[in-house]
């Protein structure tokens, strides 16, 4: 009986190194890109949070530890921005979701011209956010826009003023624009989920004695739940980071009443040119959103396991 020579002994060293590195070489192009484009800027940005970086101060740039975070703990403007962010995100996502769901339910029913309407519904999504912001800002302007006059005529406003300059109402301006702009996302994703529900389930339920509301609660909602969870999660993260409309429409004013954390970061970085402090705020926002996402993912997982 003869034994084959041990395979390792037979191979030259160079061949062995080539074999071992093969998988890494294959994945290298993708990994280098990901590291170069995503991880390096992320690490750099995080490092700014611990350094004193002010564009107008040539002597800045030194490591200052947690000084930014200590300052942040005392910064009333930051805490107001945090509260505004909750308000802005909560109201925007809630209204986008409700109107998107209603729209999806309407579009799910067959009617003449449905294909055209489905295409038109997608239109706001295609409008650049800055353009949408400018448009809505003009519509709220009583000199050129109709909205203040309509709201006055309906008795909602005492006088046809610009709500964007009213400290108590200003936030509703960007929220209205955001809702208009974000409805299609919910409408289209929910419509896709709705159309995946087998029709005979509704027929079986109607024979079992379920009315429209009961059919919605016991068939539509359970089928939509996973989609709702994931879209609400996505949109929440998205909207809370979404400062375009606020920057364009109110620039955080009046008196910081519409300043959200994302627009506050923008103000700190590009108006005060304090990149270090802006990075520290951004890091806090990142941690908060990570915690939130984790909670939603856990919730979705338990829902799916239960289902």
């Amino acid at each position, binding site marked *: 009986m003869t034994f084959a020579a041990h395979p390792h002994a037979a191979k030259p060293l160079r061949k062995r190194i080539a074999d071992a590195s093969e998988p890494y070489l294959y994945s290298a192009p993708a990994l280098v890109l990901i590291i170069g484009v995503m991880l390096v800027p992320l690490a750099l940005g995080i490092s700014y949070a611990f350094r004193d970086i002010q564009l107008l101060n040539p002597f800045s740039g030194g490591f200052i530890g947690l000084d930014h975070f200590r300052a942040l703990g005392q910064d009333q403007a930051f805490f107001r921005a945090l509260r505004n962010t909750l308000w802005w995100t909560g109201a925007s996502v809630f209204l986008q979701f409700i109107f998107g769901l209603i729209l999806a339910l309407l579009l799910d029913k067959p009617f003449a011209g449905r294909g055209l309407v489905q295409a038109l519904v997608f239109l706001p999504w295609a409008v650049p956010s800055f353009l949408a912001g400018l448009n809505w800002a003009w519509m709220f302007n009583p000199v050129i826009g109709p909205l203040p006059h309509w709201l006055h005529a309906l008795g909602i406003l005492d006088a046809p003023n610009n709500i964007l300059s009213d400290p108590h109402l200003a936030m509703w301006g960007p929220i209205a624009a955001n809702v208009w702009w974000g409805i299609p996302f919910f409408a289209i994703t929910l419509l896709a989920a709705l159309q995946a529900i087998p029709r005979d*389930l509704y027929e079986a339920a109607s024979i079992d004695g379920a009315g429209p509301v009961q059919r919605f609660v016991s068939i539509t909602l359970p089928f939509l739940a996973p989609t709702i969870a994931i879209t609400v999660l996505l949109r929440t993260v998205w909207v809370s980071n979404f400062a375009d409309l606020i920057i364009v429409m109110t620039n955080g004013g009046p008196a910081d009443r519409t300043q959200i954390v994302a627009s506050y970061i923008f103000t700190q970085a590009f108006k005060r040119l304090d990149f270090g402090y802006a990075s520290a705020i951004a890091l806090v926002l990142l941690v908060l959103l990570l915690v939130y996402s984790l909670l939603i993912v856990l919730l979705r997982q338990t829902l799916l396991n239960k289902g």
Partner: protein
Amino acid sequence: MASIDIQSIRKSFGTFPVLHGVDLTIRDGEFIVLVGPSGCGKSTLLRMIAGLEEVTSGEIRIDGKRVNDLPPKDRDIAMVFQSYALYPHMSVADNMSYSLRLRRSTKEKIASAVGGAAAKLGLEPLLERRPRALSGGQRQRVAMGRAIVRQPKAFLFDEPLSNLDARLREQMRAEIKKLHGDLRATSIYVTHDQIEAMTLADRIVAMHGGIVQQLGSPLELYDRPANLFVAGFIGSPGMNFFEGRYLVSGDHADLRLSNGTMLPIRKREGLESGSAATLGIRPEHVVLADNGALEAGVDLIEPTGFGIIMHVTIHGIPMKIFSQDRRMLKPGPAIRVDLPQDRLHLFDSEGKRVD
């Protein structure tokens, strides 16, 4: 339980007519099977009885009460779907009790109804499972359980066995028959499978092109098909047909084939000598005889175990013979057959039966 009355029901989808006036009276406790090829309107008729399709014209009465404009939930009927249509996020028990919960029945009543139905269908060990954890046959059983817990006026079945394999289909067919024997509930069953129709039905409604072709007991349809469609649809392998001219000479008659061959048949009233006609005979009724009148060239032999299906040609016309004679496995190039006169069906030029 109730009788169902259907009077001159018509249905059009847009301008496209699907049902051209159907009349049907279903007695209390009767098992009716609607049978026909795809697109004959049988499912549409069932869905109209269920209230899932609007009635274009005509009238449907359940237990004497007009239900045309009632929503499905107020008709007190139960339906078993081809896809089962079980609620995937509910357990088997919840699937079965859903209708009772919607009607706000008491907990005790629900428990006893679900328990009773589960016992009848052997579903007790599965009550806590979800539909996706069940096999096809088990899902089918749950769908039936969901129908029977409510004790409705009528059961509607829409091709309930089509998604099962042949063995399971046979088994569930027998179970449905047994269940109907126990419950004696008015049932309407849609299928394209003529074996299901023959085995289950008290009466069969054979449909084609949105028109009822024949209504009768299974053996009536088999023994005395009203027209060419029913003759060809009921029975497997299907009936053989010969086209020709009906000729009377004295007190007997013949069918003359296009090549001049005369096939002797019984004389019929109501058909003029010289008119076009079609002769039909079932494969199992052709008699093999060494001194038979006709010569048949053998093309193909299909042994089924139970018997032998022989594909032969008689006077240039292809036909099938069913025989249980094992010697026919190796019949040689040609055999001789007889077509017994009392087994022959004659249809006029419009396809109607002539006796």
